[in-house]
């Protein structure tokens, strides 16, 4: 339980959802006949509907981006550092929406939801959904919420990929695209990590080819391993050294395979707590969406061509020690945008926390993020716009 809810928190929030009856044709060629989208909102939509911000979440986070569900909540939403009154995404000024992606497990339709055609959980039969599909479903939710144009679509990591897709697919429906710690496609190394994570889940005896719900079990070990592996890629070598070093849990070596080093204890804890809040089938789907993302592939493998029809102004942020999506990957996006003559600002933040840095309140990061958001919240555009 939080001792008190800080004044600059959005406070107690509730998860909302909308049911869609209109079938959603997916990139894979399959169709979702009906589906739910879970979402949260913070702040108020102004009368001209010009202050709406869409937040896109990453692999393991969800639509609970800020605030607390109750006073008993141990932790706030995943981007509490950045969303709230007087924070970079200032809820006094903006109406903030964050949706749960399709195929996820926190309220939007996904593998553990009941398939209306069989009255059983979809399980492994849930269609593979792509970043493009997510964006399409978010655009439908925007209509429901009466938002014709987002002032900004913002996301980190896999969320940043959704932002790029938004700018490409709906050029008239956003003013600003804020892409943080992202890449325009995964590298072979990125895909390799995802594959090991998937194999950990698929080879767990309790996975039952994805039908584990019917067996009343969960592929705990597989999902835990997948998360442990993921966590290593989110931190930098320096961050791990600083946080754990070679510190021993009991102060001595035990010459066995139980937890000895603090880093082992940390990873096991992260893995275990993830199993309680995440669905293995959803994890498999999310990693596939990451692997498949490659907007340039529809444009002759020319990312600049993919951005040609975009109208948004872009803001790209990278972090120096991020090796999952390194600054070089952000520079690829930047180059495609400058080649296409688009408005773009790029900042590389010096930070030793690795990929996770995008979640953290790093002063320079928050400073430039606030400056950007403050400017775009002005009704009268600056001279240089």
């Amino acid at each position: 339980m939080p001792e008190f809810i800080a004044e600059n928190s959005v406070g107690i929030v509730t998860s909302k959802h909308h049911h869609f009856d209109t079938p959603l044709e997916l990139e894979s060629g399959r169709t979702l006949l009906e589906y739910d989208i879970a979402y949260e909102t913070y702040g108020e939509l102004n009368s001209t509907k010009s202050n709406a911000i869409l937040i896109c979440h990453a692999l393991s986070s969800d639509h609970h981006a800020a605030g607390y569900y109750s006073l008993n909540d141990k932790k706030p939403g995943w981007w509490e550092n950045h969303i709230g009154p007087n924070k970079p995404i200032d809820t006094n000024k903006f109406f903030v929406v964050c949706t749960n992606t399709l195929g996820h497990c926190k309220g939007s339709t996904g593998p553990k939801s009941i398939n209306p055609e069989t009255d059983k959980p979809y399980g492994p039969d849930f269609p593979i959904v792509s970043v493009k599909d997510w964006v399409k479903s978010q655009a439908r939710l925007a209509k429901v919420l009466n938002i014709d144009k987002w002032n900004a679509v913002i996301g980190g990591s896999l969320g940043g990929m959704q932002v790029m897709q938004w700018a490409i697919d709906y050029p008239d429906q956003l003013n600003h695209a804020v892409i943080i710690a992202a890449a325009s496609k995964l590298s072979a190394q990125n895909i390799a990590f995802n594959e090991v994570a998937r194999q950990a889940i698929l080879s767990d005896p309790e996975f039952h080819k994805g039908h584990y719900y019917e067996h009343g079990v969960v592929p705990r070990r597989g999902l835990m391993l997948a998360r442990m592996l993921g966590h290593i890629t989110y931190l930098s070598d320096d961050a791990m050294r600083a946080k754990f070093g070679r510190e021993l849990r009991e102060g001595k070596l035990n010459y066995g395979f139980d937890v000895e080093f603090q880093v082992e204890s940390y990873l096991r804890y992260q893995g275990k707590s993830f199993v309680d809040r995440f669905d293995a089938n959803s994890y498999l789907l999310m990693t596939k969406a990451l692997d498949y993302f490659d907007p340039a592939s529809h444009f002759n493998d020319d990312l600049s061509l993919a951005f040609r029809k975009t109208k948004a102004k872009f803001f790209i942020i990278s972090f120096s020690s991020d090796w999952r999506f390194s600054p070089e990957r952000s520079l690829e996006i930047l180059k495609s945008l400058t080649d296409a003559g688009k408005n773009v600002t790029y900042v590389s933040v010096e930070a030793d926390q690795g990929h996770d840095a995008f979640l953290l309140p790093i002063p320079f990061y928050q400073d430039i993020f606030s400056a950007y958001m403050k400017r775009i919240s002005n009704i009268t555009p600056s001279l240089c716009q």
Partner: protein
Amino acid sequence: MSIRTDHQFISEWVSHGSRVLDLGCGDGSLLCNLIENKKVCGYGIEIDPDNIKKCITTGVNVIHGNIERGLSDFDNDSFDYVIMSQTLQALLNPAQLIEEMLRVGEQGIVTFPNFGYWRNRLQISLSGKMPVSKTIPYQWYDTPNIHLCTIKDFEKLCKDKNINIIQKTFTDNHSQSGFLLNTFPNLFGKLALYHFEKVTP
């Protein structure tokens, strides 16, 4: 905000609606001026965090980067003008960057404090010390200006690198014309401004 004199001259040289890259763009005021008055489309490259924040606040497209590492993120002939205002003298390798400017841009514009200005010469010859002035306000040991040059030096570099000077102008504190300034720019020009291009073979 008053417009810096060198910015005013640069603005006169840049044509309407062109593509501009500003190296070491500072707080973005030159780009802002060019966007406002010449409707250019452009980017600034800047390394200083405070300046980057100022650019973001004004809405100038700023790219966080170190121009000393070259301009490899830009293809050949990506811009009509590549501008470098009062930064040349602080570079580790000014000649290399001038070549880079003319690789990614059709034309280049640089401005720099003329080390041959008479007061500098007087300070060095009379006091025997490195000159310190309003334009070059540093002691020799803490100056970022590691490659100061004179107007003659710069023109020799252009000649050596086969660079064609399209136009140039010089200012002292008060004006851009005057008999002394026009006749002996290397002695009376405080700030030098050059607009140049690569000689096509």
